[in-house]
């Protein structure tokens, strides 16, 4: 641990600050693109799961169970090698985005399904009786109401996704953590373990901590409001 205060170590990090910035950029880029893909998949499969049509429910169930019960690392490796050995390599970042998006999409689908199911049945029936079509019903009536239930677990899923960008390491790695690792083990740059890991950990913490705190606060507020509703019933 002696390296923490060595001026030379910190100096080296400042010289190679570009490495960390590049890693941060790659992590943010991967996370953001994967988030868009995950949201798309989550909405589609979440709506399928609550559609009541047996075939659609089953398809969404299979997707969620298959993805949630196998490690992301395995999926990413599989995708990368399958593409590489068939001569269609997409590059590390794009492979990462696809694998991460599909993986997170399964969690998003579950979150959205639970949110929709939390809306009382009467709301669906009322909307239908007012002549709303399926999309109108979902868009105007159901999704806005389920939003407050969906938001906290969705933000937690996003935090996990940001942490999971580190999985890129196994396929060659261009993300923040992989670049930090190759920085500390590199021939010219190596050695300053403690400062480099402190920088990398701080960046991750600064990205994730506000989000997870926000999720916890929302959840607490939601519970408080529910308790209030019960008390109001009493009056």
């Amino acid at each position: 641990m002696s390296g923490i205060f060595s001026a030379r170590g910190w100096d080296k990090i400042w010289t190679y600050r570009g490495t960390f910035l590049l890693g941060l950029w790659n992590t943010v880029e991967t996370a953001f693109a994967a988030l868009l893909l995950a949201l798309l998949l989550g909405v589609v499969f979440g709506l399928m799961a609550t559609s009541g049509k047996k075939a659609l429910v089953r398809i969404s169930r299979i997707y969620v169970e298959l993805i949630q019960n196998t490690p992301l690392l395995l999926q990413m490796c599989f995708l990368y090698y399958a593409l590489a050995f068939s001569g269609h390599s997409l590059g590390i970042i794009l492979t990462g985005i696809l694998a991460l998006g599909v993986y997170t999409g399964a969690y998003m689908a579950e979150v959205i399904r639970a949110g929709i199911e939390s809306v009382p049945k009467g709301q669906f029936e009322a909307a239908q009786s007012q002549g709303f079509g399926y999309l109108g019903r979902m868009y105007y009536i159901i999704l806005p109401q389920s939003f407050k239930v969906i938001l906290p677990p969705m933000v937690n899923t996003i935090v996990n996704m940001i942490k999971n960008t580190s999985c890129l390491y196994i396929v060659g790695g261009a993300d923040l953590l992989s670049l930090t690792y190759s920085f500390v083990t590199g021939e010219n740059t190596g050695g300053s373990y403690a400062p480099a890991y402190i920088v990398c950990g701080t960046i991750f913490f600064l990205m994730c901590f506000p989000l997870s705190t926000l999720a916890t606060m929302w959840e607490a507020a939601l519970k408080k409001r529910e308790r209030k509703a019960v008390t109001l019933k009493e009056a």
Partner: protein
Amino acid sequence: MGTLGNSLSMLKEPAIIKFLLNGVLFTLIISVVAVLFSIVFGAILALLRNYCKRPGIRMFGRLAAVYIELFRNTPLLFWIFICLVFCPAPKFMDHAMFGLSSVNNKLLFKAAAALILYTSGVIAEIVRGGLNSVPKGQIEAGVSQGFPMVAVMWYIVLPQAFKAIIPTLLSQVITTIKDSSFLANVAVIELMARTKQILSAAKRYNGTNAINVSDVFVLFGVAALIYFMINFSLSMVVRSMQKKDAAVGMHIGEKLLGRWHSGYEMKTFREAGAAESIMKEGRKAVM
């Protein structure tokens, strides 16, 4: 895909199967050991964070909170890398055993330590959820009976808290089994790493003198199937437990509501409302 037969022939090699099954065994052992240790550390962290709020001992609560938030908001792989450098491995791991070389044994210890540190933070939050579900009156009643705080926690609060979180802890086992694949980044010990290693040596075994796409599909397919079978059966157990809990809740709710309707005991709307919501929740989960 003309090489599918060659790829499948790899699975008839007893050495490969044994290598993979040993990996499965390591995956299971690492995960179970990590979760057991993490439950102990996590429970201590949760108790500190939840109940150390008086001026003299507030420090410990704060430290526990810092630990939990730090580990929850940074990746597991980050801690594995750190432990590789900074975590000392004890002497007895520095031998060839469990069919692993001494280098791999040291790596196993360090990476498992990282997994335990990381999972402790997650389980601490789960335990805290359980602690918060125990009514305050339980603690007050215990203290008023003259129990010291430690005894109140050990005999009254923790048993109730753990009973409430058993399903969540089991799903954490699933997560940890998946997380243990991160060890593949640093050492060839568990299932994921071994699958990857067989793939890189596939041309020696499949008879075509090259690594083909079909090898990727067969090897990763087998690994995925194994992970799926373990995790899916665990998640079925979790689900049936939750259903049972919900059924009990529904039963209690119905009973309470029935009493209220017969004008008995329960006088306020509030209690009736609570009973009704318990019953509805339960019914929804059972259906």
